[in-house]
């Protein structure tokens, strides 16, 4: 056969990096690409925007109070005359970093607990009861107690903003990992009975590498979904905390805080609710789409279709 002669004479191609395949597949997902572009835009805007739009978000200009959109204040000014665009940009920095960090924390924690409980039967009962315990805890009183206890020591240790940031991320992270843990455990329980896991054991692969090589890549989909939903959840929880006076200080802008500040005057100035609301929803939507595309791109069965 001519095929055979070709393959023996031509030197086989060097293996192409698999991440290029992932990227190629990701590009075909239109929603994911739109989401990625929007998310990059938002991130660039909130982190680089303040260098271009130099109004201080806490600067009070009484003459501009309750002003509508104008060239000086494209998004208008709030009831104290602070520029809303500047506050949106500053608030976005906090909200996005809190969202991402808290999501990563809860994801790591949830996946860790889920994998341990699913793979090692001995730990299962104990870890799942722990998960149930966390699910059963009344969240708001718990948050209040944690913040009361740890706010001041953390502030002293890391400074005002960093201390609060760490506290908020930690609080959101440790109160939202349970769903992920349950989902991951269920999937691991099913996966560990697959023959390829048995095959790996017959090769002599130790358990920790079986988990890393065979289990984790195959539970990517539920983890991705949890992750994207987790960001939305974290942003919203942070705003709820700020609203209760447990989060960042009142003059410190976050998207959630802007939303809650504006809601009293929603009748007169609906646009003040719309801007932060739109920013939260669009960011969440964009992240959801990115997660969706990434999940598809990471699955070789879908790739190339």
């Amino acid at each position, binding site marked *: 056969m001519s095929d055979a002669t070709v*393959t023996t004479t031509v030197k086989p191609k060097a293996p192409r990096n698999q991440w290029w395949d992932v990227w190629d597949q990701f590009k075909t997902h239109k929603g994911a690409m739109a989401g990625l572009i929007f998310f990059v835009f938002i991130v660039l805007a909130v982190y680089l925007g303040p260098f271009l739009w130099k109004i201080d978000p806490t600067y009070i200009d009484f003459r501009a109070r309750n002003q509508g959109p104008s060239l000086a204040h494209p998004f208008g000014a709030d009831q104290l005359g602070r520029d809303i665009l500047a506050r949106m940009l500053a608030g976005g920095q906090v909200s996005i970093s809190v969202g991402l960090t808290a999501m990563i924390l809860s994801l790591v924690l949830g996946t860790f607990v889920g994998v341990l409980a699913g793979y090692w039967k001995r730990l299962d009962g104990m870890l799942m009861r722990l998960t149930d315990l966390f699910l059963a805890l009344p969240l708001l009183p718990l948050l209040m107690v944690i913040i009361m206890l740890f706010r001041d020591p953390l502030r002293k240790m890391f400074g005002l903003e960093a201390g609060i940031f760490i506290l908020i991320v930690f609080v959101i992270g440790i109160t939202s990992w349970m769903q992920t843990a349950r989902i991951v455990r269920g999937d691991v329980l099913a996966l560990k009975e697959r023959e390829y896991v048995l095959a790996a054991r*017959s*090769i002599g692969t130790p358990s920790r590498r079986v988990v890393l*090589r065979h289990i984790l890549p*195959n539970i990517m989909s539920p983890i991705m979904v949890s992750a994207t939903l987790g960001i939305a959840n974290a942003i919203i929880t942070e705003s709820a905390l700020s609203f209760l006076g447990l989060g960042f200080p009142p003059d410190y802008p976050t998207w959630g805080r802007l939303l809650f500040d504006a809601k009293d005057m929603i009748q007169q100035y609906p646009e003040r609710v719309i801007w932060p609301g739109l920013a939260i929803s669009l960011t969440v939507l964009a992240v959801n789409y990115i997660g969706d595309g990434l999940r598809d791109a990471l699955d070789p069965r879908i790739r190339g279709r």
Partner: protein
Amino acid sequence: MLDDTKSNKVLVEVRDLKMHFPIHAGVLRKRVGEVKAVDGISFDIYEGETLGLVGESGCGKSTAGRAILRLYDITEGTIRIDGVEIGHTPQPDLRKMRPTMQMVFQDPQASLNPRMSVAAIIGEPLDEHARLSKAEKREKVLSLMDAVGLNRDFANRYPHEFSGGQRQRIGIARALALNPKFIVCDEPIAALDVSIQAQVVNLLEDLQEEFGLTYLFISHDLSMVRHIADRVAVMYLGRVVELASRETLFADPKHPYTQALLSAVPEPDPWLEEKVERILLQGDVPSPSNPPKGCNFCTRCPQVMDICREIDPLGQEIAPGHQVTCHLYQTT
């Protein structure tokens, strides 16, 4: 032993292997019994030969295969592979032994990780046991793909892109990666089309010749076992009821169960088919969690005697290399 090319060295020695799975029930998950999937089997496998292990579904063939490779923690018994006792070695210490013994799985779809490329799957044993540079590893993987008849260009593809037969070849290449001496083939052809079955079995035979492999070939397909095996062990409800060389077993089966099993093989010639006398067994296989008293086969045996319901028969050699576990042939 029957063939001049086969040596007389015992590579695998299994004695009284028992694998019982506990059954837990009730609120307190108390242990209420056990499934005696494998209940005391003994046999030797000589270096370079193929031992066929046949039996109906649920008789414990696959469990026996997996227990011999210590994929389970066995209940009782000893297993010696290549002179090393591994029956009760803790799993971490077994790791060093793993390269000697490998396994080919039944379902080629399920036994390959869908997220790993072919090169990664075949290379996994090398990652675990060999210290090779990236280029050496790649070369080894490609040469393994040559050995099992896979195109080298497929190295970066994923399992779902292959047909069943090709997937099984990937599984075989993975089992070969560490130059094992002993391979358990757990119904490697059961999930394949008939035309592909022949290819895979011939591949297994060619590889056996090339690398001097020893197989434990688990199957319920008697014609395939007749083709590949040198000796055949017949299992029923967790026990080996008859063990003989292929020729003896197919020509002169002694145990009533073996006779019934062999009489069930379809006859392609319709003229002969009418004349074939089939031994139809009555009833169902008893539950392995509650096997009958005496001989395991006594509930369905056409030639049952009183003693069968009382005393468990012992394996006995009625001719050199022909072992039967039945009271009909008990001499003492």
